[in-house]
């Protein structure tokens, strides 16, 4: 899932200050924690509480879309609700916000959140952990299923560096040293020879942004 963090209300109210009819759009897709209808209504109410006393004609409504990253979904769900709306506050990740910009180019679209990382949810610890940086060159098969590009802050491919202590990372002693994890896992799996291999430098050309893929019609 894409993990996001709400922006402070002050910042949101800051960029919404010129507008009078706002639509807050949630997203039922993969954002974690979920930012669907409940989230949109919560913020719509907070925004009205801040603005309405000053201008009686101010209106802030809430709605949601299955996936804000799908332009068809956005168009069909939101077009009936868009009349007279002069700004949209989106609770999708950065992808959803920009998709709305493509679908409604005449309406200013603002992000209600910061998009932080791609990660997994650990229910027991009530935490989300970053797991993948979309490098386009997956080496999980060579590193025991643990990604050193993501989980080693230095992105080492021939790690660990000499900074690990009690199997924790030099950069954040609360976090595991990814390379020690990789070593232990590969050793247990009898893959030390693979661990010993020299790994060449990363090819950054693969991940030059912005990337795109065009799907063939036969898919």
């Amino acid at each position: 899932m894409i993990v996001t963090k709400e922006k402070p209300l002050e910042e949101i109210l800051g960029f919404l200050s010129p507008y009078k009819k706002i639509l807050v759009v949630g997203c039922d897709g993969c954002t974690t924690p979920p930012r669907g209808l409940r989230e949109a209504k919560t913020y719509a109410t907070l925004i009205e509480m801040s603005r309405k006393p000053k201008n009686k004609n101010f209106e802030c409504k809430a709605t949601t879309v299955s996936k804000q990253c799908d332009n068809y979904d956005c168009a069909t769900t939101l077009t009936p609700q868009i009349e007279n709306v002069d700004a949209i506050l989106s609770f999708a990740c950065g992808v959803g916000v920009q998709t709305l910009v493509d679908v409604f180019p005449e309406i200013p679209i603002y992000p209600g959140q910061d998009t932080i990382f791609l990660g997994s949810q650990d229910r027991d610890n009530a935490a989300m952990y970053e797991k993948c940086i979309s490098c386009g060159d997956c080496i999980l098969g060579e590193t025991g299923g643990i990604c050193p590009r993501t989980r080693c802050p230095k992105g080492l491919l021939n790690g660990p560096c000499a900074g690990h202590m009690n199997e924790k990372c030099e950069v954040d002693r609360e976090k595991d040293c990814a390379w020690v994890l990789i070593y232990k896992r590969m050793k247990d799996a009898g893959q030390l020879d693979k661990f010993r291999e020299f790994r060449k430098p990363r090819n950054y050309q693969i991940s030059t942004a912005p990337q795109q893929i065009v799907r063939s019609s036969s898919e």
Partner: protein
Amino acid sequence: MREERDSSPLRGETVRGEQMAEHLTEQIETEIGVKINDSYCGRCTICSSICPYEAISSDEKTGEVNIDIEKCQVCGICFSACPVSAIETIYYNVDSLINYVKKAMRKTDFTKLVLTCQGTSPLQRETMDKLKKHGVSDFISLRLPCVGRAPTEFLLKALALGINKIVAIPCEEDYCRFEKGSMIGTRRFLLTQALLNQLGFSSDTLTVIRSLNKAIINVYRCIGCGDCAYICPYNAIELAAPGVAQINPDKCSGCGLCVAVCPALAIELEGFEHESISQSISNYSSLIPEKKSKSKTPVILVFCCQWSEFPALDKNQSFSNENVMLLELPCSARVDSLHILEALHSGFDGVLVVACEKSECKLEKGNEKAEERISSLKKLLAQVNLENRLEICFTSPRYMGELDKNIKSFMERISSLPEKPHIGAFEK
């Protein structure tokens, strides 16, 4: 103020029944919820063996039987079980119950009585259908904390008054909030019916219909996030298919935690629906400008867990002379952040959430979940300088008047706050 059932989550209101705005509490000198009168006590110790909370014990030396009020949950099971009526309770004792029935009969001419417990009201559509099948459509509705509280003496006296049918609607036995109350109440009913058969009464004079409010998921709204499945303390929910959560009705206890948590607002609990609560808040808020023009007293909304306080919940819900609107919840776990925001937005000066005391939640630590939710919501409200207008307090019915005290002190604190920000709440 009588409201249509479908729009009201308020206690005891039914389309056919009539809940009187009547105090069902006695003014007794003591402030304690329940007490043993030693001069009547026969030392039979039925009460101590029946108490689900082991709150009753006999003094080793004197043999005197005493209730440890700190352990007592004021369920009233001991009160109804005592063969010599030696246990006194300030809530719902036999005299006040009988007076209530008398008045209702005078007012309505109905001769059927429906006893619900707090957990089974408001009455669900399903239950109303069952009542109809039993030939009960016009009835006097009487709500007790637990059906196990109604002593045989009351049942017989009610019949003596002219009631010809009494239907008890206790919670399903495994879900009785007082552990044994439902079972005891049901047995008492059946035993008393057996007695009545001998006396020539019809065999359906006393009937029991079990009920329990279950949460229901709207599959068209469900986004399959799995939050409800993870959070349900009864493990009653699972993701049955991708994107669809499913509730196992055999395990659901109707606490409403999933309802308050669902990010897609896809789960509802009958009687406590999102829309119906919003509507009640909106209706009341339309009265606020008038109230404020009359006095400086703050207008507040109290979300009250129905197990945390008994007598206040008998009073007419509008509390109109006190500027307090009381909304009941099946458990404080159901308190919904959206409703709190709506209330503050629509003119209420403050919102107070009342939950059971720390270790006494009847529904698996729902009060702890409520506390966490209030704490998160306060952080959000702090961004609009409104965090002091929301509080949570913890009470129990064991001492009379706790709710009143909490409401009063909350209102005092609200009064001393600066006028609710009108101009750009976020501006510093």
